[in-house]
């Protein structure tokens, strides 16, 4: 099976997010008040093949641990979307 996979990577709770902070500070200057807790992360998309959804997910999680995320400061979520049987 082939599936579209979306990996969401976020900084762990408590790790300083300089980009989020800069955006949060610049929004009021543009007139967008009332915004707080801005966080910036990363989205990685791919088409992955595997026997089934569980196998694809476990392989992508291994990729995250090895390369895609830095487990020291980042958490990640793996989503399989638009799974296409035989696609």
């Amino acid at each position: 099976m082939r599936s579209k996979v979306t990996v969401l990577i976020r900084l762990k709770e408590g790790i300083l997010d300089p980009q989020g902070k800069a955006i949060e500070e610049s929004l009021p200057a543009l007139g967008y008040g009332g915004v707080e807790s801005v966080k910036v992360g990363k989205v990685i998309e791919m088409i992955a093949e595997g026997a089934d959804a569980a196998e694809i997910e476990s392989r992508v999680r291994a990729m995250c641990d090895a390369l895609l995320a830095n487990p020291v400061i980042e958490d990640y979520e793996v989503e399989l979307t638009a799974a296409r049987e035989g696609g």
Partner: protein
Amino acid sequence: MSEQGGPLVAVIVFPGTNCELDVVWALDCAGGRGELVFHDVSDLSRYDGAILAGGFAHGDYLRPGAIARFSPVMDGLRELAQAGRPVVGICNGFQVLCEAGFLPGALQKNAGLTFICAPANLKVERTASALTSLCTQGQILENVPINHFEGNYTADEATLRSIEERGQVILRYCGPSGDTSEEWNPNGSANSIAGICNEAGNVVGLMPHPERAMEEITGSTSGRPLLESFVESARQSHGAALGVK
């Protein structure tokens, strides 16, 4: 170490590394001999130590150091480190050592989100390391250049507490009289950390560039005691048994 000259040091070159020739030259100034070693070499057993020079290994894609940690040379560096020989990462080399798990924590984008190229004052916090053995506790090293976008040292609270308790911080950013408060922190690094080491002290990472502070003509000679310490450490570790492959 060869029959002649100082200890032989591997200066690691990844695609995108750009400070390797400065490091070789600075090692020469400090009494060592640097030799360029490309990242596809995995046997470093003939070297008395290694320095990972600064730059943009593998283009810094994804995260600085993320791809470099899978290079064959990391196996050789691991063997040197385990044998107690000095392994030092400067700037991008520090980022690589953190990504590869040689050192705790990570380097984040600078707090002000700007690339910083400026001289920084550093306070020596620990002298039992491959880079600071010839320094004195509390010594202030003036005007050592920093040159980075991702030099903001970060780690979770437990890790930070642990490296502080174990005295693994070797250098902090400081003011001219040694004040390490936030006022003198150029990039937002936790606890103003500029350099750390492993528990044994032979693996060191730092964001500042000692190799650019070796002669008055470049504005500072404060890098000398650091690289002279490194060369001395390489000399002493010469012949230290390498682990079985």
